Structures are given as structure tokens and as C-alpha cells.
């Protein structure tokens, strides 16, 4: 082929490319049931919030459409030895305000994400030392080997050191903060979108960032995000064309959306496990009629609660069949030996007997915390649980609130202020270790302060913790799976938590929009394309 032919072909290709995807021009409107409260990427470790942030911030690594770890701000990395990792940073990357991205920003972000008030402490090991080799090379020195070091780094976003210092935002904004910091209201990331305006709870406008280092896989110039808490209103907005994407479509409306001809529902099993937790760490419950002692310290009470709750009924009645009851605190997709576990049967009589044996024949009163805009039918599940517990004599006062208030109260920054709660968890690493460490690990480990970070119930078993530490460094998969099995068996024997089910992803998407649905339920619109109007 001659040079001229080559040129001609290239020109043709360019023309075709132009015809197919004209310069980003579309406005995509997206509604979620919950609001985006803080723009500070270290405030709230919650999938929806992380996904919002993913449009403007990036980590050293990212995850692709199949959840595989891929390079992002780090172009490549290598392990020089098990305790020594080296990251080669991408060159020529600019933050949205024009500041260049360098190793200093990585070091700064590593400090900030592990500072007081951050909700992402366990994403980066506390004892890892970050060393700047040159402007584009960072070494990480570990105290103990960690083969899955980068597995949570896709949600550890890199912030601009200079910008944070200029705006008095060096300290992370805690979720319980009442006055937002500068970083909570503004962003300065490296991601494919910038935030043009942000009114918490009202509207957030994202604009495509022309200076992004990557190649856009979308044709959008703008994303308008509005929280719509009411299920009916959200669905109506989708069907009237007022918004293009909604998450979630309430399960009672899936059929209607699918038959509308305007939008479809993208369904897939989600990897999130919904569970109920009980405060078993305090000597006296914060919100209960039992004084001077904590009934949940008695394993029989925990077993009684477990056995009183009928997950199959919740599946058929509340979830309309769109849930998978779970015996474990992790989805079967994440753990090969899940099928070895079966859920103990619901048994109200046995539960009553256990309560009587524990000295609570007449039951007791307790307050349950529940989000009402976070998980699929969360408040309805909680109400169903209240009814089931009433049958064994437990009078539950249900406090269902929007997730912003709920998380500020029950999570670590709020002081774990709950006695009984409903929570959902997707291990960000895609691995059981995360569940064993973050949810089932002891909270007061002096050597590892991030252990049990999301252990709102305060369950603690040193034997399980020892196993967890071994699991982290074990590289033989079969052996590792057996150890995980042992660890889960310990937690089941202790009735540590009450796993309910894995919910189903349920995104409502206009027929004009093509979208990639990732199994971790992050709505990532930088993979969206919208047809011409």
C-alpha cells in the first residue's frame, strides 16, 4: 500500500468515526434514590457515592467492566519483593484546575485517606510506608506481605495536594460533620468529568473534561444527577423521558417499565449481601428496655433473632422473588465453597424457647436503625423484620431514615450508635478476606486499627482474627478457601450476624441509552452513550 492510499484510508476512517460519534454532545440525566451529600472522596464508603466520585476522581488503579483491576493513574506496578511494591505513575495527567499530577499527590492522598475522619482507613494498610522515588515513581513498603494490596485501591481516589492545602481541606471530612469543608462542596480530580455545580440533595451537574488523559468511551457532554427519593416519582420520571437512567427501579414497577416501550430494566444478581447486625460489644445497649446488661452478649438471643426471621418470606413477599437468600456474609460469586453452607431454618418456637432460656421469656424492647433510600426495599424489609421479631415477643421501634442520617449515626465516625440495624456489604476486594477483616474482625485491635471498621455490631472472636491474618498471606487457593471456610464457620457458630439475601441489580435505562452494568452496582456513566435526539 502506498503512502497516499494509507492516508486516504486514514481519512476515510476518520470520516466514518466522525459520522458515527460526533463530538460529545449529549446530556444524560440520571436519578438515584439517594442523594450525593459530600464530594470529599474519603467521607463515605458507600457504593453509590463512590460511583458518583468515580466520574471526577481516579485511583492509582481502576476496575474495568468485568471488575478486573486495571491501571489508572499508575501506568504499571511491580512487586520488587513481597514487602516492596513499586508504582510507575502516568505522566502528563492534570487535575481539573490544571495542577500536574505527581508522586507528591499520591503521598499526600495516602496520608489523608488514613487520617482521622476518613471512612476509607482499611483501603490502604495503616503500616504501609509511601516513599517518593522520583516525580513519577512511588514505592510502597509493607510491614507484612499483602498479595491483594491494590484490590481496594480503585476506590481510593487521588487528591491534589496543593489544592487541598490552599483550601484548608487537608483533613478528610467525616460523615458526621455538620459543616461541610471546601472539599465536600468542590472537587478537583483527574477523572473524565468535572463537577460544574453541586447542590447537595438537589442537583449535581457533571461536565465532560476535555483535558482527560484517557480516551472517552461515552458521547456525553453533560450528566445531570438528581436524587428522587420517591419510588413512584422516579419511575414516572423515567417513563416520561424526564430522566434517562434511574437506579434502582423498585421491584414492583419492573414489569411496567419493561412493557412501556420507553425504557427497560437491566437486571442481574448483585454481589451485595444484605444483613442484620446486633450490637454485642457494649455492656448496655444504647436503645433498649434492658438496662444494666446487653442481651446480645448472650449467644442464645442472637440465635433466637436469627431463627425468628424468615428470609424466604421476605424473598417472596417483599422482594417479589428478586433476591437470593444467603447463608454467608458474602455472595456465592465471590467464594467458591459457598455451596457448602446452608441457612439454618426459620423456627419461631425454637427462637421463643431460646429467648426464655436466656431469661427473656417476655421479650424486650429495642430500636432498629434502617436506611430507607439505600438498598432495594430496605425500609420494607425492616418493617417485615419488625413483624417477625414481634412474634417472639421482641418489640422493635423502627427508625428508618435517609442514608445520609443513617450512615452518620451508625458508622464508625458516628460512634456505631446503634443496637440493631440493617446493612448491605459488597467486599470491594471481591474477596472473603475483606468481609472477615472489615465486618467480622474485632474493632479494638491495637495492631490493626482498621480491623472491624464496618463491624457495626462489634462482633469479636480472636480465633477468627488469627485465621483472617493467615488468609491474607496464604497464596495456595485451595488451602486458603478451606481456611476461609473455617473462619466463616466460627462466625456462624457465634451467630455473629444475620445474613438475609443478595439483592438484584435493577437499573431503569431509557431505550436511547446504552450502558454497561457492572455487578457491583456502580452506575458508571462514562461508559454510557446516548442516541441523538
Amino acid at each position: 500500500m502506498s503512502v497516499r492510499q494509507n492516508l486516504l484510508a486514514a481519512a476515510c476512517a476518520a470520516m466514518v468515526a466522525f459520522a458515527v460519534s460526533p463530538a460529545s454532545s449529549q446530556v444524560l440525566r440520571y436519578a438515584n434514590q439517594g442523594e450525593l451529600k459530600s464530594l470529599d472522596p474519603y467521607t463515605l464508603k458507600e457504593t453509590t457515592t463512590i460511583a458518583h466520585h468515580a466520574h471526577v476522581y481516579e485511583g492509582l488503579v481502576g476496575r474495568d467492566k468485568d471488575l478486573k483491576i486495571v491501571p489508572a493513574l499508575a501506568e504499571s506496578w511491580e512487586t520488587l519483593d513481597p514487602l516492596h511494591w513499586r508504582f510507575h505513575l502516568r505522566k502528563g495527567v492534570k487535575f481539573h484546575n490544571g495542577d500536574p499530577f505527581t508522586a507528591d499527590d499520591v503521598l499526600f492522598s495516602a496520608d489523608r485517606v488514613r487520617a482521622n475522619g476518613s471512612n476509607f482507613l482499611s483501603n490502604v494498610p495503616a503500616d504501609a510506608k509511601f516513599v517518593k522515588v522520583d516525580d513519577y515513581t512511588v514505592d510502597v513498603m509493607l510491614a507484612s506481605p499483602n498479595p491483594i494490596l491494590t484490590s481496594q485501591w480503585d476506590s481510593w481516589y487521588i487528591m491534589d495536594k496543593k489544592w487541598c492545602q490552599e483550601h484548608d481541606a487537608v483533613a478528610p471530612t467525616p460523615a458526621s460533620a455538620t459543616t461541610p469543608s471546601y472539599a465536600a462542596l468542590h472537587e478537583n480530580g483527574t477523572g473524565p468529568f468535572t463537577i460544574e455545580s453541586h447542590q447537595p440533595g438537589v442537583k449535581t451537574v457533571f461536565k465532560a473534561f476535555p483535558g482527560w488523559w484517557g480516551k472517552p468511551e461515552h458521547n456525553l457532554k453533560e450528566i445531570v444527577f438528581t436524587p428522587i427519593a420517591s419510588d413512584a416519582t422516579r419511575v414516572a420520571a423515567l417513563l416520561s423521558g424526564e430522566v434517562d437512567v434511574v437506579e434502582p427501579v423498585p421491584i414492583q414497577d419492573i414489569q411496567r417499565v419493561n412493557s412501556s416501550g420507553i425504557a427497560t430494566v437491566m437486571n442481574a444478581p448483585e454481589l451485595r449481601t444484605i444483613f442484620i447486625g446486633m450490637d454485642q460489644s457494649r455492656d448496655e445497649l444504647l436503645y433498649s428496655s434492658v438496662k444494666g446488661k446487653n442481651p446480645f452478649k448472650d449467644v442464645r438471643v442472637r440465635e433466637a433473632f436469627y431463627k425468628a426471621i424468615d428470609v424466604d418470606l421476605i424473598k417472596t413477599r417483599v422482594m417479589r422473588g428478586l433476591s437470593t437468600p444467603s447463608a454467608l456474609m458474602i455472595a456465592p460469586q465471590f467464594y467458591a465453597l459457598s455451596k457448602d453452607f446452608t441457612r439454618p431454618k426459620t423456627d419461631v418456637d425454637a427462637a421463643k424457647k431460646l429467648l426464655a432460656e436466656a431469661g427473656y421469656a417476655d421479650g424486650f424492647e429495642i430500636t432498629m436503625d434502617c436506611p430507607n433510600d439505600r438498598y432495594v426495599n430496605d425500609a420494607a424489609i425492616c418493617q417485615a423484620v419488625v413483624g417477625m421479631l414481634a412474634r417472639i415477643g421482641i418489640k422493635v421501634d423502627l427508625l428508618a431514615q435517609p442514608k445520609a442520617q443513617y450512615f452518620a449515626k451508625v458508622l464508625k465516625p458516628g460512634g456505631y450508635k446503634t443496637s440493631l440495624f440493617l446493612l448491605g456489604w459488597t467486599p470491594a476486594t471481591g474477596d472473603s478476606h475483606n468481609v472477615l477483616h472489615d465486618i467480622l474482625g474485632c474493632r479494638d485491635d491495637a495492631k490493626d486499627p482498621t480491623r472491624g471498621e464496618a463491624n457495626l455490631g462489634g462482633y469479636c472472636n480472636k480465633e477468627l482474627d488469627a485465621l483472617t491474618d493467615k488468609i491474607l498471606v496464604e497464596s495456595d487457593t485451595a488451602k486458603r478457601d478451606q481456611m476461609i471456610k473455617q473462619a466463616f464457620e466460627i462466625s456462624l457458630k457465634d451467630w455473629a450476624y444475620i445474613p438475609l439475601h443478595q439483592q438484584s441489580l435493577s437499573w431503569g435505562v431509557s431505550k436511547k441509552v446504552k450502558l454497561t452494568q457492572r455487578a457491583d452496582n456502580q452506575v458508571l456513566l462514562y461508559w454510557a452513550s446516548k442516541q441523538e435526539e
Partner: protein
Amino acid sequence: MSDAVVPQKAESAAPAAASAVGWLERLLQSDLLYSFRRSRLTMLAAAVTLLFFLAAIFAPLIAVQNPFDPAQLQLMNSRIAPLWTADGQSPFLLGTDEQGRDMLSAILYGLRISLIVGLLGVAFSGALGILLGLVAGYVGGAVDSLIMRIADVQLTFPAILIALLVNGIAKSVFSNRLDAVSMLGVLVLAIGLSFWVQYARTVRGSVLVEKNKDYVAAAQLIGLPAPVIMLRHVLPNTMGPIMVIATINLALAIITEATLSFLGSGMPDTMPSLGTLIRIGNNYLFAGEWWIVAFPGIALAALILSINLLGDWLRDALNPKLR
């Protein structure tokens, strides 16, 4: 208006003299009853209102379950259609919601909450408004100016906004830890504080007219203390317009409670009022489960309409210009 209350005036000066028989006689001969009998619509409205009150009072006897008791709800019975449709099941006449709550029972018990909040709210705002109005009108001067300017300022806000504000403050004071019963108290407080202005202004107006009349001067001459004159002599002569406001405000208070609950800052889902039921049902409106929202909505509308009709009739009946 003073014409209409002249006969009452003589009576109120010596209330002890009126015997029960005298009362009944006067009632039967009164203009009020006459105009009531003349209006079919008013009679219908009164009947419907009475029916709602009776239903609320005897709810535990009529309802098939206590919807406030989670132990009585069976999740198995959730989302059953009304009895007359193909999927209906006995004993759920109006169907059930997503928690297996019988809609009829939920409406009856929700009606109780709505009426309790409405009546207590009206009583509270009435007491507050009458007291402030009496003092403002009778004392006058700086006190009058102060109270009335506060009232003016409050009138510039919509009542629902004040109610939301009171509600929000109460919730943050109790750091979000409110059980259903104290929530009821907060609602009464919120509604009371949003509706007192109308009473205060009306009472003050009447007091200004009354206080220059001879019977007040006479009472002052025999040395009665001001509070006694205000309560025993002036107040009874201002009751006519207050009754009208109270009736119309009852409907407004019920609507305000329903609105607060619909917005999610009123009664919790576990102890629903009519507004809460409508909010819950709203989520199922598009899913074809219309009965969850329709029946509480109809009940609320019928209640408000009949109370309003009664209020309108009372206003016209007590207005001498319309006779």
C-alpha cells in the same frame, strides 16, 4: 354580628341560671338548628363526620386486626386485592398493603391518629390564640403591638412551613430518637404553633368591640379583676367566630398532619396515620396495587370535605348579614 349574640350576652352574665331544660329548648328553637335542618348537604356532611368519629372511636371493635401491632401482621397476607376483585380474600375488605396490613383496619386506626392530632392541635392552637388575643385586645398598648406584630410576621409564612420548622427543631432536640407517641406530641405542637394567629386576631377584634360596652364597664366598676372580666364576660361573646375558625381549622390541622406524614416527617410507618398510608401506597401506585393508596386517600378527602362543609354552614349560620 353583635346582633346575633345579644341574647347570649344576657345569659352569659348569669350562666348559673340556665338549666339543662332551658338549654335544650333554646337549642331546638335556635336559628342554628333551623338552618341546619334546611340544608340537606349540611346534614349529610354532619352524618359523614359523625360516622368518621364513631369509626375512629370504635376502631378496635370494627377492625379485624390492630395494624399498630407488628405481631398481628402476616407477611404472607401482603398485597391482597380488595374483596370484590378476583384476587380478594376474606377478611380483607379493602385489601392489604405490602406488610400484610388490612387496609380497612389501617384506615380506621389511621383515622384515630389523624383525628387525635387534629383535635388536640386545634385545642392547643385555640387556647394559645384565644389567650394571646384576649390579652392583646384587653390590655392594648405595647403588649398588643408586640403580640400582633409577631402574629403578622408569622402570617407571612405558610402554616405548613412553620409546622415543618417546629417538627425539624423538635426532632433535632430529641436527636432523632422519637417514639410514635412523642411524635404525636410533636405533631400537635407543630400544628398548634402554626395556626394560633387566626384565633388571636379574631378574638382581639371582638374584644376591641366588646370592651367599650357598658357591661364591661359595669364589671370593672364592681372591682372584678381583669382576668375574670376577660374570661367570664368578654370571651363568651367572642365564641361565635371562634367556633367557625375551629371547625375549619380542624380540617386544616388534619390536612397538615397528613402532609407532614406524607413528606415522611410525621407518623412513622409502624404507626401510620392517613398521610403515612398515602405515602406508603404512593410507591405502589404504578405497580397496579391501587388500593393501597386509593382508600386512605378517599377517606381523607371525605373527612376533610365534610368537616369543611360543616364549617361553611356554621359560618353562614352565624353571619347575621346572610339571613
